[in-house]
């Protein structure tokens, strides 16, 4: 073993040498599995979309959901800005941006609940047919992921308020951000496949 390797024997880990944090890496693996989970649900939706044609798509409110999509996209921006703020040690700005993220998440969920209620009034329900089943399951599970993200953001917010997050210790924010962006990207795929490509 070389002298150089000896010197670094104590703190050398291949992962550290690659500049990775174990929590971040674990999160990436979790996201990989989540991609496949949504892949399964989306595969079912697309299979039926192309075999049955899904005339019910005409009932969908593209404008409302388009606005909702913008809301969610904006929330990704606020998360990135929140991370930048805490890295610069700007606590107040961090809290404000995280709060804004939570509000945007709640707004998205409210929009989705409004959309679902509207569809139910028009007779498109979870049990009305294959479209309803695959549509509500797919978008519903995404909504649940957004809801989980909102709860996570609230927990992160409380940690921020207690002052345990600062310019040095902010990995919790970054990992939450990874999850939030993932949920956001899933929505971009779903919005395109369900609402835009008809």
């Amino acid at each position: 073993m070389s002298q150089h390797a000896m010197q670094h024997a104590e703190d050398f880990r291949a992962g550290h040498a690659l500049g990775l944090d174990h929590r971040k890496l674990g999160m990436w693996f979790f996201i990989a599995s989540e991609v496949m989970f949504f892949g399964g649900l989306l595969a079912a939706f697309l299979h039926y979309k192309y075999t049955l044609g899904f005339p019910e798509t005409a009932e969908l409110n593209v404008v409302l959901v388009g606005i909702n999509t913008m809301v969610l996209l904006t929330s990704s921006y606020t998360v990135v800005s929140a991370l930048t703020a805490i890295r610069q040690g700007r606590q107040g700005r961090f809290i404000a941006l995280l709060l804004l993220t939570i509000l945007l998440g709640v707004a998205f969920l409210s929009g989705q609940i409004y959309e679902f209620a509207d569809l139910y009034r028009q007779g498109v329900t979870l049990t009305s047919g294959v479209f309803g089943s695959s549509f509500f399951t797919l978008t519903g599970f995404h909504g649940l992921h957004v809801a989980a993200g909102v709860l996570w953001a609230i927990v992160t917010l409380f940690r921020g308020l207690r002052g345990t997050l600062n310019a040095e210790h902010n990995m919790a924010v970054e990992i939450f951000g990874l999850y939030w962006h993932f949920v956001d990207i899933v929505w971009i795929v779903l919005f395109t496949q369900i609402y835009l490509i008809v």
Partner: protein
Amino acid sequence: MTTASASASWRRYFWWNTDHKVIGVQYIVTSFFFFILGGALAGLVRAELASPATDLLDGATYNQVMTNHGTLMIFLWILPVLAGFGNYLIPLMIGARDMVFPRLNALSYWMIPPAGMLMIASFFAGGAEAGWTAYVPLSIGGPPGQTLWALSVMLLGISAIFGAINFMTTIIMMRAPGLSFWRLPLFVWGMIATSTLILTATPVLTSGLIMVALDRVVGTHFFTVTSGGDPVLWQNLFWFYSHPAVYIMILPAMGIISEIFPVFARKPIFGYRMIAMSSMAIAILGLTVWAHHMFTSGMDPRLRVPYMVSSMVIAVPTGIKIFSWLATIWYGKLRFTTPMLFALGFISMFLIGGLTGIFLAAIPVDLHVHDTYFVVAHLHFVLFGGSVSAVYAGLYYWFPKITGRMYDEKIGRTHFALNFIGTNLAYLPMFIAGLMGMPRRVSAYDVSFTSYNQLATLGALILAASTLPFLYNAVLSWARGPKAAANPWQALTLEWQTSSPPPPENFPEIPTATGDPYDYGEPSAPAAEPAAAPAAG
């Protein structure tokens, strides 16, 4: 170890504990319980099939017994027992103090007992009877136990995913200094390949199970044919997971075998990198073959060919492994200990399972033998002759490390002999019965198949008997066996470079890897500087 901590030591296995060694033992012992339960159900199946008529179990009960046998053996025995090996061994083999997420690790284990209880409870709620494949519409219309069945499998899948996240992150982040990827023990490589598959394939099964459960509970129409639902969609989602699941169940087993041959042949492993990379090749190819299970499901005939080809290509990395193992023991100084005997048994029986797998991948053969006992025989040669042999080999090989005591070699060999005879006697006749056209999953059969079934039942009896010497050996040796040395096999991998059993946090000082883990018979230095004392007093 003081008396106080020794007396407290057995209690930790029954409670929340974040030590990977405790969790590993929890996995192994819990899953062995389900192995015995699944074996008892197999005994019922074989008892029913001892005579052609339906006499012991009625049709519905037979279906429940065979469904739960398959599910228990796959989801609650082989998958978790291999995860148990992963838990116990990975931190030790890579020179780490624990898994990277110890609490997540404990959580992964503690999802298994409730899932197992759900599975057992499903039996009393009108058991699942749609086979372990749970094909729709059978699994949609079946009794309420089918819902509990789906929930149980879902829970086990989530537990496996959490485990895989932990394995991958641990292996990448926690390796000891000097332990580069090309110095990793091959069992660790097997766990990398397996974890990759768990992360990619298991969530797809979860999504499918959610659809089945929603169809059953909420009344959605994913698989309602009259509303346009498509039962073949379930087959796609199911096999997208369940074919890779076969590799999830065999790759760590192959890793165990790769650890054992060099140690007992006193030779470096042949083709280290080829074995490691063939595991990865099997994992990646394994994701592309699932529809070979559906050749008779009415798929486009043109689609069958690529699935046939990709399935057959898997024989190449598998062949690389088998020939590398043979080259490893070739001209070696063989020691026929119990783990070595099981490893040799693994090669011979897995070979039969693997070769018949190529038969089944061939479209014309598959069209003939689909849903016959040929498939049953193939699967059992892979999973029983293969995976279970490797699990036994591993249990004997690491028994001194885990318990700190030696097992009885003579009883171990008796166990091997009974197990080897029983496996071949139980499953070889099924090939013939299958080729003659005996359908699987039916409680009655034509009298012309009688003798093959009676032979299989006799084999099953011998298999049941073979677990008795194992249990006797394990329990007695754990309690009163002679104390084991830190490294009774003179092995070079890191788990043997610490005391038996290893102390909390594994190594008094983190070891430094300086060479290959399989440098047997070479004049050069051992793989690791003995940072740990050879044997703790």
